[in-house]
């Protein structure tokens, strides 16, 4: 338990080991056979993900402990997020199995990069040290930079990759600088180690108010807020996301808007909710300490970010004519709703929100991918006119996903918003909830716009019924079932979340 010990525990990182092995295996088969079969690559990826899921289940509910010199922590917080990432990649593999071949893109590398990105995401939720968070973030980011530019001969794809790379590295620099500041702020010559990036040690030092410098802590937290804010695409750090999402190949966009966003939220919650907020309970009498100042300032900053993100995301989405761009802004707005949960300091609501969001959003992008055809040619809303009765199944599925994103009852989107707003209301952020609900109403307009175009407009010319691959249908069906299951019978998931342990609950129990 003590971060000083080495504590090598391979069971604790079994999910990560399995995903890495799957990635390396895909790479090796690709190298041996010169050109890997898409079925083989996909099968290895899916088996690897299933293995990782089994490893997560085997760890679930166990003792909360940290291993590898305090770098990795195993609590249910980590495992729940790990499950979200595994679901994301599983669905993405399903919806892109046929797509990679149709686009004539290198198959092996695609699945390999997906698996490496997943490993990075798993590490981000498992990290118990700021340096480990950075490492996981970079593993994810570098794989996704490449995936964005995966359609090598497409200018839009290139633009997307370059923009993502430059702005991504810039924001990572902010995060790192923030980490450096926090490391400095934790300096105490009487303790060993003298300064730390370990989150548990950091929390202890914050709680006992043994800090080298309060302003340094605030500066570090502000920098980290910028870094994470960029990664989850919150206003005012959201400018990159519409361009990147529009240009990237559609399954990659789906991956970016769900997987890497959820991973960034995992680290974001780990640092802000489970470390900074946990170190300064509101009820405590300390009013002048640096820690309570940190809590107050970062709650206010998060609140402003949440309001800006929801409002900008929804308002700008209204005027978009490209479906991918519209969903990019919608994704920004959804990051805003998840931030509402962060403001309330309730990671369970955030986790449930992200779980619902990834299932719905991947489903929506799967339909868009099929309708866009080769080279992402048909992504304008005009291309969707009147296709409703020509391909009823797809149009109905897309309508379900869009309605769920808007938050119609009986779907996952409603439950997710309900939970987030409930916990924010309970924590006393009433204005925030009101703004969130108003925004949710605004979002109906642009989601319904696509549905109206599909069912009540004259058919667009040149639309051919797409041929659906079996793997894609499987992915779609899973997404639909997930959307309905989380909306109608969320009890089991909520129950699991309610019982889920994290570093905070264990400390309270002791």
């Amino acid at each position, binding site marked *: 338990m003590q971060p000083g010990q080495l504590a090598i525990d391979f069971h604790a990182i079994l999910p990560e080991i399995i995903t890495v092995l799957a990635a*390396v295996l895909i790479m090796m088969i690709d*190298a041996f056979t*010169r050109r890997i079969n898409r079925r083989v690559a996909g099968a290895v990826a899916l088996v690897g993900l299933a293995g990782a899921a089994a490893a997560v289940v085997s760890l679930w509910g166990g003792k909360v402990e940290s291993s590898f010199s305090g770098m990795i922590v195993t609590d249910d917080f980590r495992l729940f997020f790990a499950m979200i990432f595994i679901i994301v990649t599983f669905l993405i593999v399903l919806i892109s199995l046929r797509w990679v071949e149709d686009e004539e893109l290198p198959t092996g590398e695609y699945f390999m990069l997906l698996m490496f990105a997943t490993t990075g995401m798993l590490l981000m939720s498992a990290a118990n040290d700021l340096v480990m968070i950075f490492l996981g973030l970079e593993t994810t980011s570098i794989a996704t930079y490449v995936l964005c530019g995966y359609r090598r001969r497409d200018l839009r794809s290139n633009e997307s990759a370059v923009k993502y790379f430059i702005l991504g590295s810039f924001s990572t620099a902010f995060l790192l600088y923030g980490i450096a500041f926090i490391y400095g702020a934790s300096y105490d*010559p009487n303790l060993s180690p003298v300064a730390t990036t370990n989150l548990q040690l950091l929390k202890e030092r914050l709680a006992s108010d043994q800090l080298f410098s309060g302003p340094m802590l605030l500066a570090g937290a502000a920098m980290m807020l910028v870094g994470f804010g960029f990664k989850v695409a919150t206003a005012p750090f959201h400018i990159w996301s519409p361009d990147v999402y529009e240009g990237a190949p559609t399954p990659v966009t789906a991956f970016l808007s769900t997987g890497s966003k959820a991973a960034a939220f995992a680290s974001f919650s780990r640092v802000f909710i489970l470390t900074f907020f946990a170190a300064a309970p509101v009820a405590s009498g300390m009013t002048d300490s640096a820690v309570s100042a940190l809590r107050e300032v970062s709650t206010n900053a998060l609140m402003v970010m949440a309001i800006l993100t929801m409002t900008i995301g929804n308002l700008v989405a209204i005027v978009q004519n490209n479906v991918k761009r519209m969903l990019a802004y919608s994704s920004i707005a959804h990051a805003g709703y998840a931030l509402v949960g962060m403001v309330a300091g309730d990671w369970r609501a955030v986790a449930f929100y992200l779980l619902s969001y990834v299932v719905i959003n991947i489903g929506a992008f799967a339909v868009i991918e099929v309708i866009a055809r080769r080279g992402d040619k048909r992504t304008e809303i005009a291309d969707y006119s009147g296709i409703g009765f020509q391909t009823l199944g797809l149009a109905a599925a897309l309508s379900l996903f869009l309605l769920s994103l808007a938050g119609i009852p009986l779907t996952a989107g409603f439950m997710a918003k309900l939970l987030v707003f409930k916990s924010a209301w309970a924590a006393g952020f009433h204005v925030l909830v009101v703004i969130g609900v108003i925004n949710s109403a605004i979002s109906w307009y642009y989601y319904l716009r696509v549905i109206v175009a599909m069912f009540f407009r004259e058919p667009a010319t040149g639309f051919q019924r797409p041929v659906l691959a079996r793997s894609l249908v499987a992915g779609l069906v899973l997404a639909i079932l997930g959307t309905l299951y989380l909306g109608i019978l969320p009890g089991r998931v909520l129950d699991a979340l309610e019982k889920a342990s994290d570093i905070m609950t264990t400390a309270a129990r002791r």
Partner: protein
Amino acid sequence: MIQMMAILLQAQSRPPAAQSDAPIFGYIPIIIFFLIAVLLPVVLLGVSRLLHRRVFEREKLMPYECGIDPIGDARERFSVRFYIVAMLFLVFDVEVVFLFPWAVIYDKLALFGLVEMLIFIGILVVGYYYAWRKGALEWA
């Protein structure tokens, strides 16, 4: 320069004495170092600018290309395959960086260290083999 570095390193390794003796003073050598680094080229370039004799001949104004007369235009397309070399260099360079500390205390790490290192090298060999089979080493 080396002395400068040595002073700098010593200054850093000395622990800050007390809370009032803020660690910012530890950075004074760095500031001095930075000033010298800025001043040196400025002075050198300035002095040569003041002292040199100006000759403008045709040969003098030609682009310099290893001493021979330049052939063709400078704006020519060429294959940028250096990046592959750079990447492979990175693979093996980083490998050595990790091998050194292991070699120093390998008797203390015993079998565990050996297995760990074999896994590490194994991962790099996979990368190397992949680059090789994908034709990254074919020069054309």
